[in-house]
């Protein structure tokens, strides 16, 4: 099939962009693997989970507490932010007067645009002392979960808003004509119709919760331990990299790349799980 010159130009531009984006991801992954290899060779994969502690200077490399710290913070914040985000999307679409809905969307957009260090700073001077009054010391898993919840809320709220907003308006009209209450219509018709978008939003916010570094580093206390309660300090994988990268050498430095690799694996698992769960069920 013959193509017009302008089409060919467009196609090649698009191809170049797509290949560039793909290649960058591949290179980052390869780089992570390459930098992790020395530690994986000399320490061995197993010891990253079985060593007695994380003391690189003493050749101890247990990542488990930080892995759990990351997972706890992720699960906690997703559990808080998801219902809030979906409910707020329902509110702006079906309950709020147009003016309030408009300004609310603006505020959410703003919330998404605030730099994470600002969240961290606010958490450090406001949230951490408050939690400290409740139960010392203050810097804790709870503080991390709360800060993360606020940070990922705009992601799920905006995605849920757009997916609920794209549900055909006729559903609501015909539900009203059948005398269905607004809540019944939302629960039984609107939310099921929007579920693929809601699911995508949840994946996106989870990814953001896993990757967030700065704010979490500022409020979590960064003690390497498996927390016994919400009020105990934790260190996440991301915070660990940021804290130790500046002075790490040799196997220690390489071990930090292993934790980066681990983060990437978690994200890949998340995406694969999403694919698997959604296959034929959610996106059908």
């Amino acid at each position, binding site marked *: 099939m013959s193509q017009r010159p302008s089409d060919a130009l467009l196609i090649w531009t698009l191809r170049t962009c797509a290949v560039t984006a793909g290649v960058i991801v591949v290179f980052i992954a390869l780089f992570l693997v390459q930098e992790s290899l020395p530690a994986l060779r000399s320490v061995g994969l197993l010891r990253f989970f079985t060593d007695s502690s994380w003391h690189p200077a003493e050749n101890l490399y247990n990542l488990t507490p930080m892995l759990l710290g990351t997972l706890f913070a992720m699960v906690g914040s997703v559990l808080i932010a998801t219902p809030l985000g979906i409910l707020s999307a329902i509110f702006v679409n079906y309950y709020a007067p*147009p003016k309030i809905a408009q300004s609310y969307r603006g505020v959410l957009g703003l919330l998404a645009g605030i730099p994470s260090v600002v969240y961290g700073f606010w958490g450090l001077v406001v949230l951490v002392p408050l939690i400290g009054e409740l139960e010392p010391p203050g810097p804790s898993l709870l503080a991390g979960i709360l800060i993360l919840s606020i940070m990922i809320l705009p992601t799920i709220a905006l995605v849920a808003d757009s997916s609920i907003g794209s549900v*055909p308006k*006729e*559903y*609501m*009209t*015909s*539900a*009203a*004509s*059948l*005398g*269905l*209450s607004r809540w*019944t219509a939302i629960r*039984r*018709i609107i939310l*099921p*119709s929007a579920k693929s978008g809601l699911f995508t939003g949840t994946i996106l916010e989870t990814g953001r919760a896993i990757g967030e570094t700065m704010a979490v580093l500022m409020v979590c206390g960064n003690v390497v331990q498996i927390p016994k309660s919400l009020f105990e300090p934790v260190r996440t994988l991301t915070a660990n990299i940021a804290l130790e990268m500046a002075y790490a050498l040799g196997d220690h430095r390489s071990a930090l790349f292993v934790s980066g690799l681990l983060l990437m694996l978690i994200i890949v698992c998340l995406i694969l799980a999403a694919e698997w769960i959604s296959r034929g069920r959610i996106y059908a």
Partner: protein
Amino acid sequence: MNVLLNRSGAVYEGAQEYEERDMSLTQISTRDLNLYYGNKPAFKGVNLSIKPGSITAVVGPSGCGKSSFLLSLNRLAELIPGCTVSGSVRVGEHDIFDPETDLISLRLSIGMIFQKPNPFPLSVKENIALPLKEHGTVGKNEIDSKVEKVLKEVGLWDEVRDRLNSPALSLSGGQQQRLCIARTLALEPKVLLLDEPCSALDPLSSSVVEDLITELRGKYTIIIVTHNLPQARRIADYVAFFWMQDNAGALIEYGATKQIFNEPENELTEAYIKGARG
């Protein structure tokens, strides 16, 4: 007892009972009815009395407020942002704009079918069962028998009896529209508002739905908006003709179908019927 405040109708056993129902209660009349979208009038000053148990066709060119007129009769219009309705609509003895009107009862007694078939993204059965459950029918057997009964009433039972649990959206357009009519009938309305119910369907489905509407004559008070003049002539007992006047839709003429088509009083009607205008 006022029809709009009485939600619990007797359970009907057979179609015959529809004809025995007191049709005097389903008299609909409008007085000086106006509807505005913002500052723009959709129609103004509509005075119309609908004969109970009859089929009334609302005809006229696009944009003269026919659909808006239907939406004002069951107060769905107020769901549209910026829409205001004034004047009065009486259903039986009751003014539907009375602040004490129970909106749910109103919409149960005045069912509505839209131009585009709009079944919910649920199973065939659940499309009918969901509204039934919402309005207090809980027994599984009771729901099943009602589902079967209304599907038979719209002639869909034999086509879908084996796939009651399949998605309603997998049905053909005509089947979807009949399903929408079935789920409305399941709520035992007294009035049916149909907004161009056949215009989004292929000719074959269209004629099936049209036959169904004819069969419902006498059991319900039916008001149907249609662009299809031959269809109006075939199925309607009465015809209301709308036309743009002073930038707003207006009711120009109302009368028995024969009279409107054979000896219209208004020359606008005559011109429209003859296909000269609009």
